[in-house]
């Protein structure tokens, strides 16, 4: 399964970069989201994946009795998902505003400040 994971991550990264390289604003946001998902999975994979052993201490015990998945990457990814949501929502609204104000969807036309244009 690790190999499949690696392929998924590669696909997500490639798609993310490709979308970021487009000139359309909406594609830029989608690219960032895909790239973020790829990064999360990468951390998840590198922390070693374990099947069927969530890091939750059994009801009757105080410590783990058997193998468990590493909780640290999970904590990191959880934080990352939440933060990326903050970024995404802000970006979506910002794009909406920018589009409304400057009336263009082409990133190339947004690269100058008002004075220069």
């Amino acid at each position, binding site marked *: 399964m690790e190999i499949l994971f690696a392929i998924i991550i590669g696909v997500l990264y490639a798609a993310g970069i490709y979308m970021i390289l*487009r000139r359309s604003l909406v594609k830029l946001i989608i690219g960032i989201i895909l790239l973020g998902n790829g990064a999360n999975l990468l951390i998840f994979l590198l922390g070693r994946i374990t099947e069927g052993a969530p890091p939750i201490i059994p009801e009757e015990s105080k410590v783990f009795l058997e193998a468990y998945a590493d909780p640290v990457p999970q904590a990191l990814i959880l*934080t990352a998902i939440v933060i990326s949501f903050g970024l995404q929502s802000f970006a979506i609204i910002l794009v909406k505003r920018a589009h409304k104000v400057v009336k263009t969807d082409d990133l190339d036309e947004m690269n100058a400040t008002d004075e220069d244009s």
Partner: protein
Amino acid sequence: MLTAILLGFLFALFLVFAGKYFKGRLAVVSALIPLSLFIYFASFIPRIASGEVVTSNYEWVPSFGVNLGFSLDGLSLLFSLMITGIGFLVYVYTSSYLKNHQYLDRFYAYLSVFMGAMLGLVLSDNIISMFVFWELTSISSFFLIGFNNTSEASRKSALTALGITGFGGFSLLAGALLLGSMTGTYSIIEMMTMKEALAGHEFYILAVIFIFGAAFTKSAQFPFHFWLPGAMKAPTPVSTYLHSATMVKAGVYLLMRFTPVLGDTNFWNTTLIVVGAITMLYSAVHTLFRTDLKGVLAYSTISALGILVFLIGLGSQGAFLAAAVFIIVHALYKATLFLVTGIIDHQAGTRNVTVLAGLRKVMMPVAVAGFLAAISSAGIPPSIGFLGKELTYEASTHSTGMVILIVAAIVLTKILLLYAGFVAGIKPFTGKLPEKFTKVTMPGPLMWVPPLLLAILGIVFGIFPSLIESSLVKPVVTALGKDASDIHLALWHGFNTVLILSIITIAVGILLYFILKPSEKLENRIGKLEPVSPESILNKLTYFFGVFSKFWTNVFQNGYLRNYVTTIVLFLVILVGYIFIGNSRLVIDHTKLSQITAYELAVTIILIAGVFYTVFTRSRIGAVAAMGVVGLAICLLFVFYSAPDLAMTQFSIDTLTVILFVLVLYRLPKYLVLSDYKMRIRDGILSLTFGGLISLLALQVLAEPVNSDVGDFYAKNAYIMAHGKNVVNVILVDFRGTDTLIEISVLAIAAIGVYGLLKLRVKSSDRPN
């Protein structure tokens, strides 16, 4: 001693608040500061003359070995007395020269900071604190040179001076750190005990080069000399102070200070002799072609500095003696000539030597000062200049190797300097007074007394050299590490080679003065050499640097996001790819990998299909929906692989994102295809390479052992310490609770931003057309 050094800085600070009271008549009162410092340092003369070295140490950054360590020996004392003594006269002179100037208080503040920095520099025993004061002199001199800040030329030359001396400052810092690591101490006194070890050290040459870099830039040695004539744009009192006694002598001081540490080697001596000789001849010749009085003085100053460097290079007891005397000689006559020039400029309104004449008729005391200074500069008895010249000749005739060449160079320089001194000190006062200068008046005594005093001192010291012999000169030679007990200064040395050389110098020099008249024609002639001068070369270099930077900026900072991303990704691919190909040993241990089940494969296929649909669809809503599918597929992967919390979070966030997208979708721009086919292929190849590289990297990392100590710690202590059974949650809300709090704040800020953007009303006038 620390108080003495800080006094200048404190006074400057005081002027910031009380400056307005010091602009008028009170200005002259500020001269009490250098005067009291002069008296303070003069009180050390008996102790220093008896061979004592006064030290004081204040801890500053003891963990780095950086202390405010000060030591006062003969060398420091001579410089301190010059700095405060000439400083006092300059303070007095300025109060009249810049009378009622709008920024007189500011001027005094700069001057005081400069004086304090110079004192700190010559008294520091710790090289790091010496560096700090060294930089302070550069910075304060920048303000002094650029004091007429409304003139562009003035600002430019201040910047040049700062650039050149700042470069020297870097060099000094590098040298200081290198010496510090070579000897394990930053104290110069302690370094002196390791002289032998230093000379044999593998970095010896490098350390010397750094020290030279600092000294040559500060003391305007060829090819760094050009900032000094430019610095003449400063008000004349500044030129006087900086160029006769202080700033430019700092480099000479540095060389002298390090002579007992790094000197006496072939490299040290030869370099100094060669650089000094080139500088003194080059700029002495230049004086012939100047018509501006200050230009003449600037080049003769550089020449004098060249002589000093040259003498330090000779390295004998006689040479050090000559250098010590010549420093005093030069400070006295050059300060006088500058002050006289300032008076002429102030009263007659011009410094052009071709029109100035006959001014003795209107300002006799100034003429006397100029005449005496010119005598001293020419080395005509009974001035102290004669003594200095004799000692210089004596040292050069006793040099080892190439005596003829060395003597010829120094004699030629002295002849040309005699000419320069006469042009500046005598020429403006002799001859017939032109019509337009008849109305020129005497300046106030605050202006003419200082130069006259200095000029008379030059003669008094010449007649009674014993005044300075054991008090000032001998301790300097001792400080430079030579035995000074057999030194005896006297005007008359008997009839010998040196005297013959002296007579030749004076005769030829005076002849030259009568034959060669400064003229614009000559000045223009040397102007033709301008394109190959070091200054023009540097200017061209800076110009090309600017062009290059602009080109560089335009290429890389072009304002197109995708170009930035392309550059970053491409660089990463090449760098990582190169390392990867070189070191790859991709071994996948199949036994360690988990099995692929049918449902996992199905999820993977859905996920990849979703990604492809997102990328290639032309419908926005389709893309957003496909992205949602991708998110949910990832969510399932988390479920399979023991991350229930992640799955829940991913699920809710993914849903929220899709909802948000759809909500604003109708207002969002169309899902345009803006790039052409070729560009998409290019970007596709780049992205695929990058993605592939990341996949390979991930597999490579999996082959490495993993360290799960941190995870184990949390798992073990989750219940025991934090009483929670879901370890991921415990980490987030307990062990790393503060991080989570900050994360929540970030989200709150994002929410405020979103709210603000939604509520923002853009006025029609703010919209670009």
